[in-house]
């Protein structure tokens, strides 16, 4: 079976486990399109992709190699394909483009761009450089160690971005967003029904915008940060671990204050939650205190 699939379309009837290894060249991307079943992507040092597929029923796994991509998809004989778990081992440089419907997506060790999207299922990705986009509708999204322009979205669950850096944009409706150990040069975090927290550097010239309707916002900063901060709430509260001097107060609970020369622009908005400024690193203690109280 080895190398038998190159370069034309090969359609394999899934009767037993598939285990194929296909050579790839720099610049080729991996495209995976799955209806149901899990996708697990790992990396290795070879310039080849190993595809291991576990059959969940009748259906086919199609592996197609073009000049620009290696694509793997499942097709059903009639109607949607049955559930198939696919494990892929790819070179770390390979750009990944993975989409599924009833699919959990797990990625580890990627060093290229990532686009991973599912509807019902979680996305858990480690790595990714350049454009990194991870999305789920019903499931949670967790991204660790990514660099570049990061887009992490869910609708009905939480989004976590850990130990990542770059321009970060993240949104959910009915979940919380947590960015810990992450270095955002610009940040947009939006939820309707969830809490937002960012614990990382606030860079000069950066724009940081955290906005929620029903949730709390926790931002780690200290007096040494240089930022113009704008805080807005309708029914919520504002609290700070250190004293701030309000430079402008507007009607309602809206006010601005400046730390240092104010080179970063920070906007914090919660319609009816609590907005807190905490010292860096203290967020977890605070959470734990909370847990102890309960």
């Amino acid at each position: 079976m080895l190398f038998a699939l190159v370069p034309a379309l090969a359609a394999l009837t899934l009767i037993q486990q598939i285990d194929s290894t296909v050579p790839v060249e720099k610049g080729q991307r991996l495209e995976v399109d799955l209806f149901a079943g899990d996708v697990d992507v790992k990396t290795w040092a070879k310039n080849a992709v190993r595809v291991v597929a576990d059959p969940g029923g009748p259906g086919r796994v199609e592996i197609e190699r073009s000049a620009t991509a290696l694509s793997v998809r499942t097709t059903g004989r009639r109607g949607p394909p049955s559930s198939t778990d696919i494990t892929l081992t790819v070179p770390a440089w390979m750009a990944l483009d993975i989409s599924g419907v009833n699919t959990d997506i797990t990625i580890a060790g990627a060093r290229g761009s990532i686009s991973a999207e599912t509807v019902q299922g979680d996305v858990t990705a480690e790595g990714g450089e350049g454009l990194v986009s991870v999305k789920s509708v019903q499931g949670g999204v967790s991204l660790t160690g990514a660099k570049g322009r990061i887009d992490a979205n869910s609708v009905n669950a939480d989004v976590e971005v850990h130990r990542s850096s770059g321009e970060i944009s993240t949104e959910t409706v009915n979940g919380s967003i947590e960015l810990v150990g992450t270095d955002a040069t610009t940040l947009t975090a939006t939820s309707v029904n969830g809490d937002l927290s960012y614990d990382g550097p606030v860079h000069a010239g950066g724009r940081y915008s955290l906005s929620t309707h029903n949730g709390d916002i926790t931002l780690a900063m200290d007096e040494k940060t240089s930022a113009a901060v704008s805080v807005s709430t309708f029914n919520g509260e504002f609290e700070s671990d250190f004293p701030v001097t309000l430079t402008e107060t507007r009607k309602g609970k809206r006010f601005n204050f400046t730390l240092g020369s104010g080179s970063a622009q920070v906007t914090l908005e919660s319609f009816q939650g609590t907005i807190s400024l905490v010292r860096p690193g203290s967020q977890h203690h605070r959470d734990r205190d909370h847990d102890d109280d309960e």
Partner: protein
Amino acid sequence: MSDVWTDRLSEYLDDELPPRERAELESHLTGCAECSATLAELRRVVARAHALESTGPAGDLWPGIAARIGATPTSRTEGRRSAGAQGRFTFSLPQLLAAGIALMVLSGGSVWLLHAGSAATPVASVSPQPPADSGLGTPVSWQRRAAPRYDAAVADLERVLAEGRGRLDTTTVRVLEQNLRVIDQAIEQARRAVAADSANAYLNSHLAETMRQKLDLLRQAASLVSAAS
């Protein structure tokens, strides 16, 4: 090489001659080798025209278009059809204009809403600078002017979702509807707050932002329907 009938050959070929002239021409063709030959050539020209292929542009023209409509140029991957292809980056200010909502960032960092007006087409980029004219609408006038376009976009997407919900998993439909309710509730609360304090820039921008989230989620839902079809 031409006689009176030569000029009618194209019409004959396209079946556009009245029956009598058609019959006359057909009888002429039997006796005129030149016209018959010309007709055969014209037929080949038409066949060749039908067979012409459109190979498309040599380069990718999308980045130029994306720049002009104010969208973020995307990689081909991002443009690929897939579930929930909308991210936060996709909804730039110019696209908000498409929904009839304009945000203008003033120098003080406050966000004001402008009514979109009839001239508000999603073009080029909206730079974060103060508006040149005194086009600052009161929130009330903004809502009156922009609401119909927003409502139309929402209604269109809701129709797509209603018609296509059968193609989606029932739990997905339930989750989408639940989240739409969450957003609707937030919109309602924001609306009431704006009604009580219509000059409050935060409340106005929060209302617009929440309305944007609804539009965004509806678009995502419509994309799921589209991907499932």
